[in-house]
Structure formats: structure tokens, C-alpha cells
């Protein structure tokens, strides 16, 4: 039996999304840029998908730009705001320490080009406040980019309040909402959002497709040059099948959002309650302002990759922010941004659930995780030092 608890990494493509895609491979296969009937059929589908996706976000149809996914949308939003800012000699950007690398690496690149970036603290609970954003805004600030919900610890930021502060200061506000779209109610107008990135495969849509919402009036810069697609702002023949799959998946997610959210939250809280009983373990991030499916916990004295591999041997698919899983010697920047010491952050486990997970699966996870944690602690010299009192427990 496989228990898939890594839905923050990616989700299974839903049957509805697959069915929505199929006609666009071999029936309505035209290029929307072609003037003939076959091409124009595809163009109609594309327009319809754009309308449907816009509606799901409370946006206008022509405010949606299709991209290859969340990373591209993040890159384009940030670079565009930077270019727009430079025209007015504004080269200061505000963000947080725990953004996704699609945002952080783009910002680092801009810093090398002379932009100044303020990385706000996210505190122990993994949440930045609107007041802190307000205090960081300067006359030369050209962008605030803050994620909607964190991909590792699931904490939800006060997006509407941050948007309000930015609107009042006249600073464009972008949010990487890759983990939030399809899981939380979003209305870009009500929440004062100027740009928003989303990715289809996080809500049971296909991989390799996403979108950027851009409020009317904000000028986009191209990341990909070439053709006149996406109103000249993103070249490349549109990925129609996947765009259709994304539209279907998003509508489906939003139609069932309240029902799924309540169910998944129930599973999540059962998991958090059970795992919290393991001694010297700590749930990371705010417990209330949290994505319905996210559990992130650190176990002192063990390392995350070995934990994942042993859970995998029991059929449980999870994720970790340990250095060994990040490919460097440092553990996840998200966990470090919460103020966790390296040695604790190495022992992290992320379980991310969706509505397809069952109570029985949670029971299996709650049986296996303590077993594996105990096994690894028994062979850990770090645990030995902690238990013998040679070193003090941190958590």
C-alpha cells in the first residue's frame, strides 16, 4: 500500500483534469495563432479557459497570462516590477526570508544588478505582519513580494492586510500563491493583490502549466521572447491541453473547497495531535493560520533523509527539509528562518495531505512514524548525548 502524503510537492492529476485535456491532443489540436478553422477552435478554447480561471480568482479575463508554472510566473512578476521600478529610479524590493527559491533566487539576481532587497523576518510562527511590511516600505520601494502560504510549513500570510498596506503606499504587491490556489478562498480584488502566481499541479491539475494574474495597468516584461502569444508578453505556442486541464482542476478544487478543506483539516489535526505525543518533537509554524493539509514537525536527534527512506520502505511518501534532501550541507532556509538551530532543522518531516487521504492512512502514519523515529534515535550518537544529559535538549 502506498500512502501519498507529499501533496505539497505535487498532486495526482484528477480524472476530470485528464478528461478535460484529452480532446485537445488529437481533436482540437490547432495552433491558436492560426487563422484557419482548426486554429480558431483552439483559440476559442484558450479564451474560455482564461475566462474560467480568471473567474476562480476574481480577476478579469485579460489579467491572466499562462506560463509554464509557478516558477516562471514568479520570475516574470518580480522582474517586471523591477524593470518598472528602475524607470522611476525605484530599486528597493521587500520580501521575506522564507520565500520559495523561485522568488529568492530571482531577488538575489536583482541584488547583483544593484537592487536593494529587504528580507522580512517571519518569526517563530512563520508569519509576517502587515505592519512590518508597512514599516519596511520606502519611497524607492518598487515591489512587495510575499508568498500566500509557505510550501514547507504551510503558514498563511495576512495577504489582504499586506495588500492594503501596499495599495495605500502605491507599491505593487505580488504573491506567490502556488500552495494556496485551490486550497484557500482567493479574490485578487478584495485582497488588494496586484500580481499572483499559480501552478496547476498543486491542485490536481497537470505539471508544467501555471498562470500569472497581473492587474490591469501593470506592464509586464518578457522572460521568453518570440511570438505574440499572451498579448505579446509570453512567447511560445500555448500548451492548450494542459491549460484546459488546469481550468478544469481549478474549478473542481474551488467547487469543493469548503468540503475538502474541512475534511483535510480533520486529518491534519489528528496527525498533529498524534505526532506531538512523540517526545522532543516540535510542530513548525502557526497551528491556526495553516494550510489545511500541512504538517511539519522536527524530531530531535535524528536526520530527515533516513527518516524519509525508512517511511518510504513502509509505503509512506513524505518530505523533509534536511540538508541531505536539499542537496547542500545546510537544512531548509524555511526552517532556519523560524530560528530553529541546524541540528533540529535536519530532523524535519513534512506530511502534506489532500482529500484523497483516509483516516486509515493517518492511523498507519501514526503507527509507523514513532517506530521509525525510535529506531533512528536508538542508533544516533546525538540522541545518546541528549538522553545521557551530556547535551541539553533543545525541544
Amino acid at each position, binding site marked *: 500500500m502506498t500512502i501519498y502524503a507529499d501533496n505539497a510537492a505535487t498532486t495526482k492529476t484528477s480524472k476530470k483534469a485528464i478528461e478535460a485535456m484529452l480532446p485537445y491532443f488529437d481533436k482540437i489540436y490547432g495552433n491558436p495563432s492560426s487563422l484557419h478553422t482548426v486554429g480558431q477552435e483552439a483559440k476559442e478554447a484558450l479564451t474560455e479557459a482564461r475566462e474560467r480561471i480568471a473567474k476562480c480568482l476574481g480577476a478579469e479575463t485579460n489579467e491572466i497570462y499562462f506560463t509554464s508554472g509557478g516558477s516562471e510566473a514568479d520570475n516574470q512578476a518580480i522582474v517586471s516590477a523591477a524593470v518598472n521600478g528602475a524607470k522611476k529610479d525605484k530599486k528597493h524590493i521587500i520580501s521575506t526570508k522564507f520565500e520559495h527559491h523561485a522568488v529568492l533566487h530571482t531577488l538575489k539576481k536583482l541584488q547583483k544588478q544593484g537592487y536593494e532587497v529587504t528580507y522580512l523576518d517571519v518569526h517563530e510562527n512563520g508569519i509576517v505582519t502587515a505592519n512590518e511590511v508597512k514599516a519596511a516600505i520606502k519611497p524607492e520601494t518598487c515591489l512587495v513580494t510575499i508568498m500566500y502560504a509557505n510550501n514547507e510549513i504551510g503558514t498563511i500570510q495576512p495577504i489582504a492586510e499586506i495588500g492594503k498596506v501596499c495599495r495605500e503606499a502605491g507599491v505593487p504587491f505580488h504573491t506567490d500563491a502556488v500552495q494556496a490556489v485551490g486550497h484557500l478562498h482567493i479574490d485578487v480584488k478584495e485582497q488588494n493583490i496586484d500580481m499572483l502566481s499559480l501552478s496547476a499541479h498543486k491542485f490536481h491539475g497537470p505539471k508544467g502549466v501555471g498562470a500569472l494574474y497581473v492587474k490591469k495597468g501593470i506592464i509586464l516584461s518578457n522572460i521568453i521572447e518570440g511570438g505574440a502569444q499572451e498579448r505579446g508578453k509570453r512567447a511560445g505556442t500555448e500548451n492548450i491541453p494542459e491549460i484546459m486541464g488546469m481550468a478544469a482542476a481549478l474549478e473542481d478544487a474551488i467547487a469543493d473547497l469548503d468540503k475538502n478543506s474541512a475534511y483535510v483539516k480533520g486529518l491534519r489535526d489528528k496527525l498533529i495531535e498524534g505526532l506531538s505525543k512523540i517526545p522532543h518533537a516540535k510542530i513548525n509554524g502557526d497551528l491556526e493560520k495553516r494550510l489545511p493539509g500541512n504538517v511539519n514537525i522536527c524530531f530531535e536527534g535524528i*536526520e530527515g533523509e*533516513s527518516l524519509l527512506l525508512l517511511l518510504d520502505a513502509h509505503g509512506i511518501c513524505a518530505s523533509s527539509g534536511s*540538508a541531505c534532501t536539499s542537496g547542500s550541507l545546510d537544512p531548509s532556509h524555511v526552517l532556519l528562518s523560524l530560528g530553529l538551530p541546524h541540528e533540529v532543522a535536519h530532523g524535519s518531516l513534512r506530511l502534506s495531505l489532500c482529500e484523497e487521504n483516509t483516516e486509515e492512512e493517518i492511523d498507519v502514519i501514526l503507527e509507523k512514524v514513532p517506530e521509525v523515529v525510535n529506531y533512528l534515535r536508538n542508533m544516533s550518537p546525538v540522541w545518546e548525548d541528549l538522553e545521557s544529559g551530556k547535551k541539553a535538549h533543545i525541544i
Partner: protein
Amino acid sequence: MLYSEKVMDHFKNPRNVGKMDDADGVGEVGNAKCGDIMKIYLKIEDGIIVDAKFNTFGCGSAIATSSMATEMIKGKKVEEALELTNKAVVEALDGLPPAKIHCSVLAEEAVKAAIKNYYDKNGIEYDKKMFCDGDCCHCHAHDDEE
């Protein structure tokens, strides 16, 4: 798969796990900050390693290399065990991913640290340059994001 079958076997069924209360040499290398610490215990009789045990905090390959390294030195003369290289451990495990080679270095150093401890305890002279200081972070600088 990330790891070879042999690595997975030594990770899931590690040989020689545990503490040794009457060890003749104990070596601990690594740093919890870096995410791996290995502690190797040796029982030495007449210059021969008659038993070896380990405790490891670390990833799958850290546990597998500890397991393999202890297997490879059991029954060997101390001088022979000193010649154990990380490369030999990697080969015995049918290879490690490039990012995990440092685990094998740690295993080699843990064996050496345990032998150094044995030499120190017994007043046996040795060339200090043969041994590392036991802190992996000195050899592997943290990747400070640029």
C-alpha cells in the same frame, strides 16, 4: 533510485549497530550542524580488531557507510584498518551519489579517530598528520547562499 541496492541493504539492515561499553578505541567525527555524526567503537586484541560497532546520526548513506566500514575492518590488523579509504567503502557499496561521497570520507575518518583513541590510550606513537580533527564542517564549508 537514489541509492544502489547495496547501500539500501546496509541502510535498512545495518551491520554492527550499537554501543560498546568496553571499547578499546572510540572515535566520533562529524557535526550535528552539518547533519551527520558517526561514532565508531573498536575492540582490539593483540593488534587485531576483533569487533567494531557504530552509532550514526545522519542520512541513508551515512548509516550505510558506517555499516560497511565496520564490516570491512572487523578481523583486520589495526595498521590494515588505518589503510581503509573512503573510495574502498564507496566501491564496496556499489557507488554513492556525488553529493554523498562526504559520508564515505566521514566513515574513513571515524575509523581513524577510533584507532587514534586506541593509540592515545595505550601510549602508542603515531604520525599526527594521519588524522583529521574530526570536524567535517572544516572540510565542507557550508554553502552560504550567494
